[in-house]
């Protein structure tokens, strides 16, 4: 493990009515993947071993925050269809996102999340890498 590598991951933070997630990563692509992992953590998703399909996601938004909300809501839609994704690749070019995912059968889910929101959403880049806070409506 590289001790100089910036922290990468996510942490649930208190929010009165809903759920907020702090997400960290050394680069933007990993930030998006960590946010997706954080969402699956909140949902309490259990992924099965049955591979359903490979999907390609292509998104354009006004900014990175728009891409983040779009991606997370895309995953929520698939979760509602009993699928959970494993990222094969994810690329962000300016305000465009391209991702390939292997969709697995969802075998369980503990919590309902209605949506990822734009509430105070800002993706920050500093010396530590990238970080953001996402509020989910539950």
């Amino acid at each position: 493990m590289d001790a100089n590598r910036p922290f990468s991951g996510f942490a649930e933070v208190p929010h009165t009515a809903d759920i907020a997630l702090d997400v960290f990563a050394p680069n933007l692509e990993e930030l998006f993947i960590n946010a997706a992992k954080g969402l699956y953590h909140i949902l309490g998703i259990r992924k099965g071993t049955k591979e359903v399909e490979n999907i390609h996601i292509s998104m354009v938004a006004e900014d990175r925050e728009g891409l983040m909300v779009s991606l997370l809501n895309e995953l929520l839609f698939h979760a509602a269809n009993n699928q959970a994704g494993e990222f094969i690749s994810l690329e962000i070019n300016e305000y465009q996102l391209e991702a390939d995912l292997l969709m697995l059968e969802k075998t369980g889910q503990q919590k309902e999340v209605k949506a990822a929101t734009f509430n105070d959403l800002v993706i920050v880049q500093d010396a530590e890498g990238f970080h953001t806070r996402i509020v989910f409506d539950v």
Partner: protein
Amino acid sequence: MKIGQFEKINDFEWRLPRETQPGMRVPVVVFASERMLNEALQDRSLEQAANAAALPGLRGNVCVMPDVHQGYGFPIGGVAAADYETGVISPGAIGYDINCGVRLLCSTLPLQDVKTAITDFTAALYHACPSGVGGRGIVALKARELKAVCEQGSGWALKNGYATAGDIETTEDSGCMEGADMEAVSSRALERGVDQAGSLGAGNHFIEIDLVAEVFDSAAALAMGIHQGNLALQIHSGSRGFGHQICTDFVQKFQTVARKYQIDLPDRELVCAPLKSPEGQQYLAAMRCAANYAFCNRQLLGHSARMVFERFFPGAHLLNVYDLAHNIGKIESHQFGGEKINVCVHRKGATRAFGPDHPALPARFQKTGQPVLVPGSMGTESWVLAGTAAAMEKSCGSCSHGAGRVLSRTQAKHQIRGDELRSRLMAEGIYVQAGSLGGLAEEAPQAYKDINAVIACIEGAGLGRRIARLTPLAVIKG
């Protein structure tokens, strides 16, 4: 934000002047005691109310109910009225669970006759009313039927044997908002809507069996069909994945629309479109589809509960008291400065509370005012109030929708264990049937404000008057 920034109007009303924050177009008025105002200042809910006051074309004040708590963009327990001619509609100011609401049914059966049957009745109800994450509803709809549900709301349930004429009469808007248009709804939303009609969901949604413990106005209670000592039943649910997807679609879409109309907002979750714009009209049409779906959803759950009730207790009946929305945008006419103006009233975590003699109310509520259902937290009392003339003046005919959270879900889970909570409630005589113990802990009474303090503020501000108090006997959580 600090309490010193608020002007005290009286013991239950506080005004935040529009000069408080750049961009505020109208003041914010908080209906709360000083103690509850201080509690509200512990999270960002009142900052969110000040942000909401930046929405273009608002009339009157942004109103904040005593059960207010932090949401996303717009606070839960907030009300904002936008001029229909010059104002906007904001999906985030209505919420993702469009027409989340409450239905109350009251029985002709005294509790003393059936006390020992409550546990079995609850278990049967749990099986008859699908609940939990995702999940299929009571009815699987074909595409044509989904269109009819969206256009007719509870009317579809009536035509298909899932409702009575009395149910329709005692539902807000008779269970159907005019102007719903399926063309405005995405294919994804339609996909999510086909199999969830008649399902409770998870989170804070519940079915609760109650005792009508006390009646405060006998004549009004009689008009509402509420009888002291009898069993009652509350259902809290909304438009399920169908509504969530519609809101998601339009919050995303309006990110560019707001810029198109040069609307600058302090929080992107407040994005909006002018009510009269094609985009605003499209959202209204889609939102009404979700509202009608939710009315039908609670109707199906209520019908299913009634079937179980009548099977368990032959000869007894379970009649609808009222069904109302607490996440909704409605075109209504209200007085502002002596002038009657058409506005879009955004109610997010707030209940309509029309006073007596309002033409939108059915004949049976003309004298009493609209029944206002204010459920407490799990294991605590719930209240039936009546809307007032004062609510019409002060809050565009709006009132609180519940107790309001004080603890985050994370804090609640750290402080409370689901199994211990269930044991404690059982020891208090409240039977609990829950799909998830973790979910149960998140909804513990300690996570919510004191419902009686909320009711005292509502009465103090004159937004509602007490009709009846309900105490819980059993709770079903998804």
